[in-house]
């Protein structure tokens, strides 16, 4: 199994033989903060919590390529919360920007103008609108070219930055600015959420994982494991969004936990296409527990209970876990 000592499949060349230090509890999370407070993100931002832990795992020798989205607001002139460099790109081309930076760093090292110790990890940071919709082709190309980069997608299941409009990541029956529940469509969004994990996994990248801000130990261990591979290392973080999902800011972490405990958000990883679930709840909670606390699903309960839609969501979750033979 990859990750325990020496690596056999390296997807190319030059994998460092390194020993992984897995952490066991919240107390082992590195104390250094690589992203400082004072950012303009909403209070209780789930994506920011996920990013904070990602930054701890990645360290400071990185350069972030940020596609347009909520997190482009982290760095507004003249302020930045980061200790590393940061580049802003349009929504559709962050992986292309990463290719440019990676090539520039490689050429500088090759020519001897940059000390190999000064090498930087290239990290793409995008929201779900970019990852699921606009930059899907750009990411596909980058994975196909085996570009050595990290990709962090903070998935808040809508275009949150522009006022919560429907995106390819919006789940079935969710209310968004462009899918309001009404007379014609009482359930809100009628399309299912894209399975971006499966789309990316069909490229068989060296490392691909889903992460959650409520499981920082799992998150950091996944980054440590990914570190040994050269090539695309991709992460999708479910990011509860207080204004977009209609929840109190204090409820972000509880909701991220509920998403995992109800089976809505499967925490998993795939190494060269081989799938493995990292956190499987012992007993799945009913999906309704996750839905009823969110304003974006309130129309499924009031004024009329939308039994059909609720059953369809539960069946979708059951079908997923049955398919992976993990439903007890």
């Amino acid at each position, binding site marked *: 199994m990859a990750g325990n000592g020496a690596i056999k499949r390296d997807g190319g060349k030059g994998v460092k033989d390194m020993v992984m230090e897995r952490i066991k509890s919240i107390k082992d999370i590195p104390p250094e903060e690589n992203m400082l407070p004072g950012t303009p993100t909403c209070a209780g931002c789930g994506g920011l919590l996920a990013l904070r832990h990602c930054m701890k795992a990645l360290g400071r020798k990185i350069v972030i390529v940020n596609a347009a989205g909520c997190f482009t607001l982290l760095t507004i002139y003249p302020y930045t919360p980061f200790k590393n460099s940061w580049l802003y790109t349009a929504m559709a081309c962050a992986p292309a920007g990463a290719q440019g930076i990676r090539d520039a760093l490689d050429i500088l090292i090759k020519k001897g103008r940059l000390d190999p110790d000064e090498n930087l990890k290239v990290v793409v940071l995008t929201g779900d609108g970019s990852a699921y919709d606009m930059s899907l082709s750009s990411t596909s190309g980058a994975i196909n070219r085996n570009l050595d980069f990290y990709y962090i997608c903070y998935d808040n299941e809508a275009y949150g930055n522009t006022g919560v409009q429907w995106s390819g990541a919006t789940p079935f029956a969710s209310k968004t600015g462009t899918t309001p529940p009404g007379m014609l469509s009482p359930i809100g969004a009628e399309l299912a959420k894209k399975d971006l994990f499966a789309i990316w996994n069909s490229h068989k990248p060296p490392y691909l994982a889903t992460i959650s801000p409520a499981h920082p130990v799992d998150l950091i261990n996944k980054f440590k494991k990914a570190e040994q591979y050269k090539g695309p290392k991709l992460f999708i973080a479910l990011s509860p969004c207080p204004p977009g999902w209609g929840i109190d800011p204090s409820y*972000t972490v509880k909701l991220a936990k509920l998403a995992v405990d109800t089976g809505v958000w499967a925490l998993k990883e795939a190494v060269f296409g081989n799938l493995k679930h990292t956190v499987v709840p012992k007993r799945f909670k009913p999906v309704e527990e996750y839905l009823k606390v969110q304003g974006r699903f309130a129309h499924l309960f009031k004024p009329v209970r939308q039994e059909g839609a609720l059953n369809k969501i539960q069946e979708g979750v059951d079908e997923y876990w049955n398919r992976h033979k993990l439903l007890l």
Partner: protein
Amino acid sequence: MYRLRFHGRGGQGARVASKVLGTAAFLDGYYAQDFPLYGAERRGAPVAASTRIAEDPIMERGVIPEPDIVIVMDETLLQDPLTMPLSGLKPGGIVIINTTNSPAEAKAEYKINANVLTLGITKIGLDMLGMPILSTLAGGVAARIVGLSEDSLTEAVKKVLSSIITDKKLLDKNVAAALYCFNAITPIETKIELKTIDTNKKKSTVISLPFEPAAVSSPAINATGNTPLRMTGNWRVFRPAWNYEACTRCMICVARCPDGCILINEDGYPYTDYDNCKGCLICVEECPTNTLGKVMEVHAKKVIGN
């Protein structure tokens, strides 16, 4: 013409407050405009919204640079150099501040040279709605000041909110809260004529945008990690408060804070960086013991720097 400007924080409801007022004025037979002004920021960040009310068609457009009445829905904004809610206030204008202080105290504290009215609407919002959303309350206050009728206010609250919320009970609570605020405030005699239509901008209509070289017009940030200077601590409605007797140093709060605002002291105990804590209260929700509780911010000024 009445020109009003609402200053609040994203999520408090400045936009809806201006809409409630504009709708109420319209129902009373006036011409009205209401519109928000967003910055590139999020919930908790300063937001402004404007309403114009007149007896004749309104020919003015755009942001109100010289308001007659300013409604400050968050007291901490008065000290925010980037917001400056009182800028452009006309001589003899009225300032309504959401504070528990008396008008005289607020006048002295913030050195305001205008008519000041105060009402602690955050407290009213928490008592009557159960949450610090002040849209209908501020709308109610403003409706009283400009002399609109109670019936139009009730209708306006119902009309505006029914497109936002489906909860009938919450809607009724909002109507009650708006009327409570409407009756709780005593209006000041104003000399603003509803009939006067004047344009307060008589400058050139052409805006000149001088060309700057790329190095100036798209500057690079060469500092690292300087966002703490922004002091997002003044976003809070509630602050997390510590009771160390119960603390087991489990570090759960540290791992759960999205902003990394919980630091560790020399003895290994966590504490809050109140300068930057946005008050999301995830730490209070997640604390497995009774170490963390929440306390309402009465006066952010006294808290920052503690």
